[in-house]
């Protein structure tokens, strides 16, 4: 695998001025859908580009030499295109950032409005010129604002899917298949044991438990961005109309969702002194808080965790979960395989997760595939505990002085084996805000 290819092209301006669309006239609904079926005609290629000319891997992350930009870089770069707002994909400190309007808003909430020198909104399904390539953002179905990024040059199209799911989600636009030559996919749940069940059944489990144990509080661990709001929306769909109580860490992002027109009902913040009065209530907090001092004052809490990992009993037990809810914002095994086939890609790169199994599957289905072993991307919180370097944060948590603890800072996923090819792995955990990491 070639690595560290240097840009071979003429200098590209620092900002994204080369785009076809100017920043001024971007509107959320103005985008004209492009037909997804414009299959690429190899004969029209003046000189077929190799996929690695369009996209390579650098220590900062995936890099497009022809357009001189990175996608979801794990270190500060000159120009970043961001697929979605989770903190392992959307980091602060880049000079210019292009993302969907919602993702830019999310980054603004997380890192402050000045998180980059310049930002540019990418309208969904609209082609934009960046350097010598055309890029297009298409819904990925992962969380609010999440998008796949397709890069096209010389008749070759590469799609970076970011994180994506095919399951229904009332809080974001559904995934759209983008036919391509090279499909770049995650494999968080890339083993055939991961088959996510219907979310309605999982939410019913929670509501049945609330009915059976009305004197206890149900504390649901869920990532602050996406999962938490999805759980709220699913509860509302099932007819739950009581207030859903929130840990302080999810408040601002939940407000953001509501301001985007997603109805989540009444979601008061938990007041520290009132915790003991929340018998029979549903409380949503970051996963790190379910076992933390914070959860102690609730009446006989039932510990719940909404995550794809809850499919495996050992995982749930290890986290001390009593009511696992298998609700994931990632594709399960069947959807990963289905999606790869639907894109028609002849080549698949697998960024992170259970790469080996998915690569094996591709190979047995006549699709060229390779694992990228990318570091720095979390996998639905799995890295959260395992990746703690010794002495990180000194393990000193605030004592119980009646205050609500902030979730202790957690480092982003680093439990992937270091690839021998990865000469200089990115630093981990530096810029993780403790918002619950990746979901």
């Amino acid at each position, binding site marked *: 695998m070639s690595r560290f290819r240097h840009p071979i092209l003429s200098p590209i301006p620092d900002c994204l001025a080369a785009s076809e669309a100017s920043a001024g006239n971007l509107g959320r609904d103005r985008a004209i859908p492009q037909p997804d079926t414009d299959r690429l005609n190899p004969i029209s290629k003046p000189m077929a580009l190799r996929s690695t000319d369009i996209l390579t891997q650098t220590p900062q992350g995936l890099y497009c030499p022809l357009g001189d930009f990175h996608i979801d870089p794990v270190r500060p770069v000159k120009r970043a295109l961001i697929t979605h707002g989770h903190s392992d994909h959307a980091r602060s400190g880049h000079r210019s950032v292009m993302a969907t309007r919602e993702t830019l808003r999310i980054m603004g909430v997380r890192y402050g409005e000045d998180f980059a020198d310049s930002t540019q909104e990418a309208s969904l399904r609209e082609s934009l010129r960046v350097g010598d390539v055309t890029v297009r953002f298409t819904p990925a179905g992962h969380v609010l604002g999440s998008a796949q990024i397709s890069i096209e040059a010389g008749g070759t199209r590469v799609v970076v899917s970011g994180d994506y799911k095919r399951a229904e989600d009332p809080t974001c636009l559904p995934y759209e298949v983008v036919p391509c030559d090279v499909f770049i996919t995650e494999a968080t749940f890339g083993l055939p044991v991961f088959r996510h069940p219907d979310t309605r059944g999982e939410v019913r489990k929670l509501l049945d438990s609330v009915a059976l144990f009305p004197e206890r509080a149900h504390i649901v661990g869920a990532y602050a961005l996406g999962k938490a709001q999805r759980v709220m929306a699913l509860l509302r769909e099932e007819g739950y109309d009581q207030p859903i109580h929130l840990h302080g860490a999810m408040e601002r992002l939940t407000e953001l969702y509501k301001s985007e027109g997603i109805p989540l009902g009444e979601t008061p913040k938990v007041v520290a002194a009132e915790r003991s009065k929340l018998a029979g209530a549903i409380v949503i907090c970051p996963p790190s808080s379910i076992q933390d001092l914070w*959860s*102690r004052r609730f009446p006989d809490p039932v510990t719940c965790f909404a995550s794809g990992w809850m499919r495996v009993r*050992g995982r749930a037990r290890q986290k001390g979960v*009593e009511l696992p809810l298998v609700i994931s914002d990632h594709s399960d095994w069947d959807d990963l395989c*289905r999606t790869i086939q639907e894109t028609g890609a002849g080549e698949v790169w697998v960024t992170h997760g259970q790469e080996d199994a998915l690569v094996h599957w591709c190979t047995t289905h006549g699709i060229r595939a390779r694992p990228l072993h990318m570091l720095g991307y979390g996998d639905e919180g799995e890295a959260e505990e395992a990746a*703690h370097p010794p002495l990180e944060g000194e393990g000193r948590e605030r004592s119980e002085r009646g205050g609500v603890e902030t979730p202790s800072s957690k480092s982003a996923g680093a439990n992937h084996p270091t690839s021998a090819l990865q000469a200089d792995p990115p630093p981990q955990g530096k810029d993780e805000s403790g918002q619950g990491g990746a979901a």
Partner: protein
Amino acid sequence: MNRFAALLDRLGYEPRRNAKLRLLTDYFRHTPDPDRGYALAAMTGALMFKEAKPGLIRGLVEERTDPELFRMSYHYVGDLAETVALIWPAPGHESVAPADGAPTIGHNNPPPHVPTLTEVIETLATTSKSDLPARVAGWMDALDETGRWALIKLITRELRVGVSARLAKTAVAQLGQIEPDEVELVWHGLEAPYEDLFAWVEGRGEKPESGNPAPFRPSMLSHPLEDEDFAKLEASEFLAEWKWDGIRLQAASGHGSDGRPVRRIYSRTGEDVSRAFPDLVEALDFEGAIDGELLIVREGRVQTFNVLQQRLNRKAVTPKLIAEFPAHLRVYDILFEGEEDLRPLPFAERRRRLEALVARLDDPRIDLSPMVPFETWEDLAAARSDPASVGAGPDADAIEGCMIKRASSPYLPGRPKGYWYKWKRDPYLVDAVMMYGQRGHGKRSSFYSDYTFGVWREGPGGEELVPVGKAYHGFTDEELVKLDRFVRNHTVKRFGPVREVEYGKDKGLVLEVAFEGLQRSTRHKSGVAMRFPRINRIRWDKPAAEADRIETLEKILERGEQEVHPLKDQEA
């Protein structure tokens, strides 16, 4: 079946007894007959069918999956039943769907018939071995992931969900206004699916007749006695016997309707354990029910609990095992003689009846637990501290204290106050240093409540702490808060739910650990394993360097059999 599966799934995660009870009662209340009855049978171990071997399950899944993907998945999940349940490719759930991206659930095949628990169990009882794989595969296709998991656990008889037979029966009793002990009494005359039992507890039917000529009667239990309690108790009103370090059993014997003898041995909780002790069952040549302690006696000498453990939990009870570990019942009470219920009689009176029965039996496998004579509590204290001196002789090793019983005490089920007391021998004590803290479960899941501790030894690189045990109780709630804070504030490493804390010659927390005994162990780095360790005291004041050394434990081990009063020389 899916409903039963959901119950098992939820029970498996639930640590609290009362919550388990609520889940069980809820299930029994909302599940129709006969499904709920078979569920009850599954949880009380009353189901009789040929179990399926894990190899059958493995064979089925290997026909259906890519071997490489199965290998990776099994490696990841770690449990065969769970891996198979999750990876099983259900028909109509292909990984390739229509190209238009329609949801995968939209296929046109009729949904396969989801079997009920009753169907599964009735079919298992009648299916031949050669038909079994096809049957199981058909069910697997129809069930969801949790359903498949439960099915595999059920048919391989690996149903471990932390529910005792007693708890399941208690849940049934709670459907109505019935005491769990009453369910226990009629239980052994009943058969799955227990429709008459449910009808009775729900007030729709007559109380079922106990068809069992040798039923279990709920055991009478004792309260622990603290030193200060003696002031309140009048010595002359009590009788004392040794407290044997064995297993509490109830032996019942009667005649079936055909006139043949029916002999059964029950555990303290009413589980029928007759099959494990055929040698003892043979000796039950009486009619009635007696209460006593299971011991291993070799050449007239009672062996320690360590020896007894080697007889327990064996799948096959071979003649060799019986010869090597001969079971013995040392009896201390009688509940029934023939048809006569002796339980309302005073203890002293029952004791006379028991003595007469044991004399009539005249079998070396069944003998009387001797009384310990005493006038004052001081006498008894002396006897307790040195049983050998008051006639316990070589059996003193298997004595873990005294039982003190009110002479007028009737035999009552449960743990009634004011009648029976246990006065245990003082435990061994050792000062150890906390090395790791682990998160607890349930109510304690936000606490580091399980502590691994070590003692000093000379290691290859000098003095080092070696872990000797782990304890998670013995402290108060207030102390737990402090211990938890200590772990959080002194963490040096984290391994998932475990934290390593600071320790060394000049830092660390000393815990005074109490335990009942020591055993050599190859599984532990230190070579010793503690029996029933708990935190006796937290020694905030004691420097870690002054904690005990492994030699202290070695000495206890060496003295082993002779040791009767561990604290005698330390107190001096």
